[in-house]
């Protein structure tokens, strides 16, 4: 048995793989598009791992969907990688015996918000509980909108939280945005009494209003209706069908579209906005705000039982310098937040 050496085949042809370059800078606002990493530094049990995956999908497209972390990776490693890749936010999940916590931090030295998650539901649970779960194909191709409600503008830590969340998702310019790209919505609702933040993730759907249900279904689903019992096509078209119970709600949710959106929703006609929940559902509580990336002085702590020693050690002379930087940063972000009036609504 000799070895075959086929000279023609031994030449290896390397095809250049086209690299998908994600834009770093938004054409619209010129800011860096915020990118995020969702990870955890410890081994997570089953459902929490799924929660992490759901969060990653939520942050699409500007996140690493299949980020693989090893046990020996430290925060330092992630920081080093985030620089060249332009990652601006870290979302870290960690589970201890007593609690599950989510830390939202801005790289490289930004503040860290620690949320304790009281309850959570996975995306698969929610899909199971629905009658008709909906997931169109290009749902995750564009970033979600964000709606913050109930946060108020008084307390500092809440302000910081709103600013942080506003900046996690890229801004949109109302002059140029295409409504077809606004397919998802993230809602953060703060409840003053219980100090709990509800986190929800919805998909946006537009339905034409004023069209009878049957015709709408017919046009949307392309299913030939059953005309057996009807004498005339006009019966089908003009039959006064019963109204669905959600039609009352639709009144409030009616918008006039500026452009056509698919076959059904034509521009300059009224359409109703319908939200259906997808994605994880969380109830969290803001527990701690730190100056640095998981280090630094504590700006706010829910439980007030701060370990004085550790924190005092970290208060060095350049702490004042850090604080100034943070103030500038947050103020700047605040200004940017108010400019992007199209993106988010503050409601009280």
């Amino acid at each position, binding site marked *: 048995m000799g070895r075959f050496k086929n000279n023609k085949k031994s030449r290896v042809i390397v095809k250049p793989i086209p690299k998908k370059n994600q834009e770093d*800078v*938004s*054409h619209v*606002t*010129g*800011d860096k598009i915020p990118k995020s990493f969702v990870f955890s530094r410890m081994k997570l*049990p*089953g*459902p929490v791992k799924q929660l992490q995956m759901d969060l990653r999908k939520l942050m699409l497209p500007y996140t690493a969907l299949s980020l693989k972390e090893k046990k020996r990776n430290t925060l330092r490693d992630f920081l080093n990688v985030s620089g060249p890749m332009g990652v601006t936010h870290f979302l870290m999940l960690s*589970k201890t*015996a007593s*609690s*599950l916590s989510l830390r939202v931090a801005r790289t490289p030295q930004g503040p860290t918000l620690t949320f304790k*998650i*009281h*309850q*959570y*539901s*996975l995306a698969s649970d*929610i899909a*199971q*509980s629905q*009658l008709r779960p909906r997931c169109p194909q290009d749902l995750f191709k564009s970033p979600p*909108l964000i*709606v913050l*409600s109930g946060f108020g503008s008084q307390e500092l830590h809440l302000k910081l939280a709103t600013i942080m969340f506003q900046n996690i998702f890229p801004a949109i310019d*109302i*002059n140029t*945005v295409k*409504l077809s790209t*606004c397919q998802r*919505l993230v*809602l953060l*609702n703060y409840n003053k009494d219980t100090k709990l933040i*509800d986190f*929800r993730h*919805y998909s946006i759907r537009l339905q034409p209003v004023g069209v009878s249900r049957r015709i709408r279904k017919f046009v949307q689903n392309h299913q030939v209706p059953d005309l057996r019992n009807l004498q005339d096509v006009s019966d089908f078209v003009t039959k006064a069908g019963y109204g669905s119970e959600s039609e009352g*709600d639709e009144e*409030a*949710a*009616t*918008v*006039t*579209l*500026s452009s056509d959106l698919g076959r059904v929703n034509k521009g300059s006609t009224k359409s109703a*906005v319908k*939200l259906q*929940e997808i994605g994880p*559902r969380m109830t969290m509580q803001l527990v701690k705000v730190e100056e640095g990336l998981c280090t630094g002085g504590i700006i706010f702590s829910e439980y007030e039982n701060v370990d004085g020693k550790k924190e005092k050690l970290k208060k060095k002379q350049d702490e004042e310098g850090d604080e100034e930087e943070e103030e*500038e940063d947050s*103020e*700047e972000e605040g*200004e940017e937040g*108010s*400019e992007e009036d*199209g*993106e*988010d*609504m503050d*409601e009280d």
Partner: protein
Amino acid sequence: MSTGEEGHMAMADRGSRKRRVGVKKGTKAARNKKQKSKPSTSDRFKVTMKNQKLFQKRARDYNSDDDEEEDDESKKQPEVTIREKIFSDANMGPNYEEIEEEDNDENSDGEDHGEIESGITKFATDGCNAFKIAFKAIMKKTKGDDTLGPVLSAHKHLIGEKLAEDEAEKKAKGQARKAKHLIAEKGHVKPGSYLDSHEKILIGVATKGVVKLFNAVNKAQHAQKGLNPSRSKDAKVLKKRRKEAFLSELGKTKTDTKVWHSLHISYSLSFIMIYLESLFLSRLMHVETS
């Protein structure tokens, strides 16, 4: 030669020992077996030259046909059948043949050989018989036996204990696993019904937000709708509008150089013609890339 025979004897002994299932060294059964096998060995030691011839013949006939032995075989038919029964389970094909042949062969030689033959066959049948008896004993026993299966009584205690231990371990492990599972699932809530009142409120809030946004977009984009960017007149109007917006935004921010530069670049990217300060632009590019 002698060593060969002894070697064969040893092998034979071991062979017979092998067939006695479940008999350990120090037990009564082993001692009985040894006593049983001893007389056969005494018989065997008589045979030296004949045995050797026998073995040679065996080796020769191992692969040959049985044509020569047919006459003798017919005589030996009843015995053969009985032996067949015994040997059917134990896979003794070649041995059986050999014994058969040697039996026929040696009988023709004479009595002496017959004795020898009986010794050898005895050895062969002995071993098989022993196996047969042991096997049948076990099979009979297991007719009414419990879950442990065909186990000799000496071992039952040990196996019982081991099983009990295993169960206890499993229980402990199961409990540990359950506790771990509970901790993992802590906080995980599966929504019972899809829409309860709280959820409805939240959806209402979110819907309001979206409606606000879409209306704002509509207003902004509708105003621009009529204006076609390619027409120069309209282009000017567009520019004016955007410039106003840009300047107003500038006015809002602090004069933080970083912010100003980035805003400047964003609009420069989309409107290259507007600002003739190309030098400024190049300088800005430098700042961004550095």
